């Protein structure tokens, strides 16, 4: 053990505590699960972003990552399976001063919620989507999902997955996302920086985070424990900022291309709406005052 760790005073609070609902700890995630690591990175991104946290809202769907909203010390919404993005769309449009973050898993965002993802990206809705991709449906016991690579054994593919998986970053780019990046839970500094970056970027932003599920995915596929996952990420990840997303598909044991792939400026939904209405209606256009729902 290094001296640095021993130097931490026993009464020191964890610097991410103010960003978490400590009255809800301990969390439900398994030992060595990567979701907590991403939440730590998110907390640090919130801190360094200097945003007013009363104006940041977090929306999750269902699943292991779906529980993130409940642990974040923000206005938080744990919605229905796959529907975090359309909920976030309504929240953002009704209250545009909010920075709305969608934090959910690969199954939630890309199977049951896949349609909402591509449409929100197409509209360039000003929301930030963080997808913790553990390559499986973990909450329900490790079934095959749309991001599960072929040849993997899962609870519903006992003889191996044979259907092709989505390349999430390519889909995000093709659908119109303003920002697309991929990191793993090994790349905590880069991930925190990417999260901070999207908190200051307009438009639909997408970060995919490869994250280990030792309990289900790795155990079933004889891929070792949490530490082995870190070694694997370290060994096979290759930073290629600006890489064509078409070259970033994931396989069971092959290279993981990480980095920032897309960072472009497109007018977002509200800008387009305002522009169109002003063009056609002129002075008759009334700025949306959606939250006029007054008090009693």
């Amino acid at each position, binding site marked *: 053990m290094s001296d640095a760790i021993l130097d931490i005073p026993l009464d020191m609070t964890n610097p991410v505590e103010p960003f978490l609902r400590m009255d809800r700890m301990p969390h439900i995630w398994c030992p060595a699960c990567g979701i907590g690591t991403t939440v730590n990175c998110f907390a640090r991104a919130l801190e360094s972003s200097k945003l007013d946290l009363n104006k940041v809202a977090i929306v999750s769907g269902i699943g292991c990552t779906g529980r993130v909203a409940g642990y974040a010390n923000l206005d938080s919404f744990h919605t229905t399976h796959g529907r975090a993005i359309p909920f976030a769309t309504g929240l953002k449009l009704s209250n545009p001063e909010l920075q709305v973050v969608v934090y959910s898993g690969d199954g939630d965002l890309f199977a049951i919620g896949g349609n909402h993802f591509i449409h929100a990206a197409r509209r360039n809705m000003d929301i930030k989507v963080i997808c913790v991709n553990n390559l499986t449906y973990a909450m329900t016991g490790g079934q095959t999902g749309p991001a599960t690579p072929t040849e993997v054994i899962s609870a519903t593919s006992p003889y191996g997955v044979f259907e092709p998986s989505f390349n999430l970053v390519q889909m995000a780019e093709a659908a119109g996302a303003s920002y697309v990046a991929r990191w793993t839970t090994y790349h905590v500094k880069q991930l925190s920086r990417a999260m901070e970056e999207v908190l200051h970027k307009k438009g639909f932003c997408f970060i995919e985070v490869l994250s280990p599920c030792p309990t289900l995915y790795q155990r079933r596929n004889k891929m070792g424990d949490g530490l082995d996952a870190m070694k694997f990420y370290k060994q096979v990840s290759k930073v290629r900022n600006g890489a064509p997303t078409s070259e970033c598909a994931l396989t069971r044991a092959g290279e993981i291309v990480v980095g920032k792939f897309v960072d472009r400026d497109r007018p977002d939904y509200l800008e387009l709406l305002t522009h169109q209405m002003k063009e056609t209606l002129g002075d008759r*256009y009334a700025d949306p005052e959606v939250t006029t729902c007054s008090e009693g």
Partner: protein
Amino acid sequence: MHADPKGVLTGVHFLDGDHACCEGTLAAGARFAAGYPITPSTEVVERFAWRIPTVGGIFIQMEDELAASIAIQGAVWGGAKAFTVTSGPGFSLMMEHIGYAAITETPCVFVNVQRGGPSTGLPTLPAQADMMQARWGSHGDYSIIALCPNSPQECFDLTVTGFNLAEEFRVPVMMMLDECVGHMTEKVVIPESDQIAITPRRFTHQSPEEFRLFKPKEDLVPDMVKAGDGYRFHVTGLTHDERGYPSMNVETQDKLVRRMQDKLKPFTNGRALFEAVNLDDAEVVVVSYGITSRVAQRATQMARAQGVKAGIFRLITAWPFPEQHIRELAGRVKAFVVPELNLGQMVHEVERHAAGRAKVISVPHAGGTVHKPEVILKAILEAAR
């Protein structure tokens, strides 16, 4: 409090039910709508899309009804009054989020302009066959309010009422139009904004430190907050305690689910909305709602002309069902006749509360058009025998 004049199109108009419903949403203060096109309901949001940019608000056409029915709830928690509009197949897709609105106590309005079903059914023709779905369609135990206008004027008036009830009780409210009411054009009088009463959102006056998101007030309904005001609250579709935190145990489940049921109890008694016509001396009461009530009116007039004392009990709040009114009537009338554009849905409620003390005669219709008055008349005459 009164309606914001910006949304109120005061005057005498010639509108169809769908358009009148849209004006009702605007008068009620709705400034956000999400929709997905479906016949025969789309005119409601088409008009909203046309009107809202000059009133100040947002319409977004979503990718499907699942998205529309949850986008409105995001908007509500952002501080807006919001609604969506659909018909049969879309209503089926929205069931998941009616349950979400129920458990998260999100005040919002679902307009369902009913068409023939099941499945794609009769897209352009009327039915009233979603009445049980409106009450029970999402899984689990919960309560909702459903209103049944029978004219374009009521499409306006009751839509305002629907928004007000949603805010008061914090439940999803279903506007159960049918294709006939939605597409019939009649005179609609929209009053001055100061003549339209609006129920404001129950925003809390407590500080973030004191406030508990799901702690009920005396009427069993909790006060509300919106995102961005520093309350740092949590909303979940999981069973939750008064703080809004998930709590997977029998006690929390029992307390929450019973409260969601009980908070509408005053409604079943004093608050039911209905129209009573010629009930004082009635021997036969036609229980009807929506477009069918207008055919029933003709049938009861014909019955009276033949010397049969027939009256009408028109359901305006179909849900919660006005049980005590049916119970009272059952003690003094000979029979209920229940015509519906379905094969018998609300008639079961009438039977249940009549409890054998009066005859109950169903007059079913599979939908596609309305009953002939003679068919209802025949049932009235048989009932009077």
